[in-house]
């Protein structure tokens, strides 16, 4: 069997993977997928061979089938973790054995994949697992020394990771398209509602491309203050403006040899759109304060939750830039158009969240499944994940029943789409709004949160209406809420 021969013998490289799978054809297939994506893969078909290779290779990531001929996969995982607690283990489980995956997660597995395994999901899981916790995500390199806004799009969100769960025909076609376009240099323009997984689609394009071993730099154009955006994209020289205390390369230069992902691109200020167009035409960047431009080799992927052509008609987006970027359009379908995917995603998320929170959930009861199929899901996968996170945190386990769902969801699902505003998102309890005087002395981030929470309260929890009032994209608001939930705030 052909395997990647780059696996080192002494100490592992960041992309060293030990793949433990006893079915030879699957071992070959997974090896081919990962090798194509730039990983150095060594295979083992038995527990004994896996442990021997583990000791010799010291891999950063182990992909471990739980069903092995000579030893239980969970025991193998325990041995590996005892010898190297830092190793990231992604377990491979089969149809109908989700409980084993949950047990593995509880015992320290980094992630799990259910067979048959989609190749984009495989690459994303191994890529995430292989990223040392002490290092920033590759894209964060662009923001080194930069603003918090530029770092806001770091590791793929839960929503993004979940995108490729699901076997609906529309997603199969989409994944085909992503794989097809990935090999070229063509600019990919991803559209879709908030929460549909546009960022993971961008990651998948990068992951399947010949430049997958290069950097993937993501910038949320809607989350970065306008006066800082140019510096974030093109960089600056020390002393070029107040606060520029050192040279900063900028995202475009940091993405050299890789992919630059411009999220919410329609929200980029018009003056900067002109500079972006020039960058696309010349492939050169000129940091603020620099005297000479620098040539870079960057593939552009961009995304928006707006209709880009409508943005052009309104004068919000330059027409020439639109035609320069809108080369290969990829549309992310809303969750309501993905058929049974909603159940598959919900069950996968339930297992994941249950493992993380130490709760034993066994699935969704029939009424919940019916409701999930019927509901409009205006917030898409992100909203579904928020609902499930809420269920897992507030309940002990068992089958998810209607009475466990967040307030308002059942009622909203009974109404026709568009009949009422979206249900309340899962947000922390809303605080009293202090007066202006009460804000003085607080950090800016805290003030921002207070204002956002007060605006959400004013709009009865509606993210879309609050976003309109605050003049930001709903996706930006969702991301902020998600970040607060993750930090437990």
């Amino acid at each position, binding site marked *: 069997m052909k395997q990647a021969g780059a696996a080192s013998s002494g100490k592992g490289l960041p992309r060293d993977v030990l793949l433990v799978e006893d079915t030879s054809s699957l071992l070959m297939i997974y090896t081919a997928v990962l090798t194509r994506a730039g990983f150095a893969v060594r295979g083992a078909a038995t527990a004994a061979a896996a442990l021997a290779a583990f000791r010799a290779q010291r891999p950063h990531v182990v992909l471990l089938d739980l069903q092995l001929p000579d030893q239980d996969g969970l025991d193998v995982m325990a041995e590996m973790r005892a010898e190297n607690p830092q190793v990231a283990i992604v377990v491979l489980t089969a149809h*109908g054995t989700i409980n084993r995956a949950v047990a593995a997660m509880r015992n320290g597995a980094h992630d799990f994949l259910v067979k048959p395994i989609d190749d984009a999901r495989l690459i994303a899981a191994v890529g995430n697992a292989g990223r040392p916790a002490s290092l920033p995500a590759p894209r964060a390199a662009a923001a080194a020394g930069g603003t918090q806004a530029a770092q806001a799009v770091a590791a793929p969100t839960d929503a993004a990771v979940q995108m490729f769960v699901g076997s609906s025909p529309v997603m199969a076609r989409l994944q085909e398209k992503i794989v097809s376009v990935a090999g070229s240099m063509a600019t990919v323009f991803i559209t879709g509602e908030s929460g549909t997984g546009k960022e993971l689609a961008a990651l998948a394009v990068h992951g399947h491309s010949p430049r997958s071993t290069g950097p993937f730099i993501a910038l949320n154009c809607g989350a970065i203050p306008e006066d800082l955006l140019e510096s974030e994209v093109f960089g600056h020289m020390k002393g070029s403006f107040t606060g520029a205390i050192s040279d900063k390369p900028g995202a475009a230069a940091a993405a050299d040899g890789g992919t630059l992902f411009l999220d919410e691109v329609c929200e980029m200020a018009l003056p900067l759109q002109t500079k972006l167009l020039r960058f696309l035409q010349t492939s050169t960047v000129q940091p603020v304060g620099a005297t000479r431009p620098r040539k870079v080799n960057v593939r552009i992927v961009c995304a928006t939750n707006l209709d880009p052509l409508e943005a052009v008609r309104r004068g919000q987006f330059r027409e020439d830039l639109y035609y320069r970027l809108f080369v290969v359009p990829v549309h992310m379908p809303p969750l309501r158009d993905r058929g049974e995917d909603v159940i598959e995603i919900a069950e996968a998320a339930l297992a994941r969240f249950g493992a993380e929170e130490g709760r034993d959930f066994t699935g969704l009861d029939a009424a919940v499944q019916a409701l999930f199929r019927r509901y409009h899901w205006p917030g898409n996968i992100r909203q579904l994940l928020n609902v499930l996170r809420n269920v897992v945190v507030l309940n002990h386990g068992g089958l998810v029943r209607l009475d466990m769902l967040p307030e308002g969801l059942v009622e909203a699902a009974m109404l026709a789409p568009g009949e009422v505003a979206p249900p309340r998102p899962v947000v922390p309890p809303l605080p009293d709004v202090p007066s202006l005087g009460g804000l003085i002395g607080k950090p800016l981030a805290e003030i921002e949160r207070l204002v956002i929470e007060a605006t959400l309260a004013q709009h009865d929890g509606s993210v879309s209406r609050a976003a309109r009032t605050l003049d930001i994209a709903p996706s930006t608001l969702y991301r902020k809420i998600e970040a607060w939930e993750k930090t437990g705030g």
Partner: protein
Amino acid sequence: MVEAHIAALQDMLGQIGRLSAECAVQDLVAEALSRCQMLRQLGAGQGQMTAPLDRTVDLQIFERLMVLAGPSTAIELLDQVKADLQVISTNLQAGAGRLDWAMMRAECHTLVAVAGAVGATTLQAHAETLHTAAVATNVAVVIEVMPALSEGLDRLITFVSQERSARAHA
């Protein structure tokens, strides 16, 4: 002629399934599955396969896998897929014949993964159904699913063999 035998056998399988809840039917199951297999082979020999081979797999998924593997590895991969499928087929027949639930579950696991990887989505669905039946020790479902699953497995093995030959001579 074969069709009439199959119809009679299916009737018998239905009766066995209904009986299964009330008594031990291991021998009957084995006999029925064995006769079903023989008839299927006879039908296949007479050119009575129900659908063209190229509908056995989703060709987009299959071709993507071949591209991923590359021309040289693709042949080696097809050999390995065929070998794995043959082992699964043998073990599943044996497991179903003696209602060895653990063996059926294990083989179904592997079949779901391999069939899904090469794009044999119908066979993957049959394997998932059989796995669920094996977990629930549901004889009636095993009897209902096994013939279609066995046929799908045979067709996939044939398809893989033909692809392998075509690519080797390309």
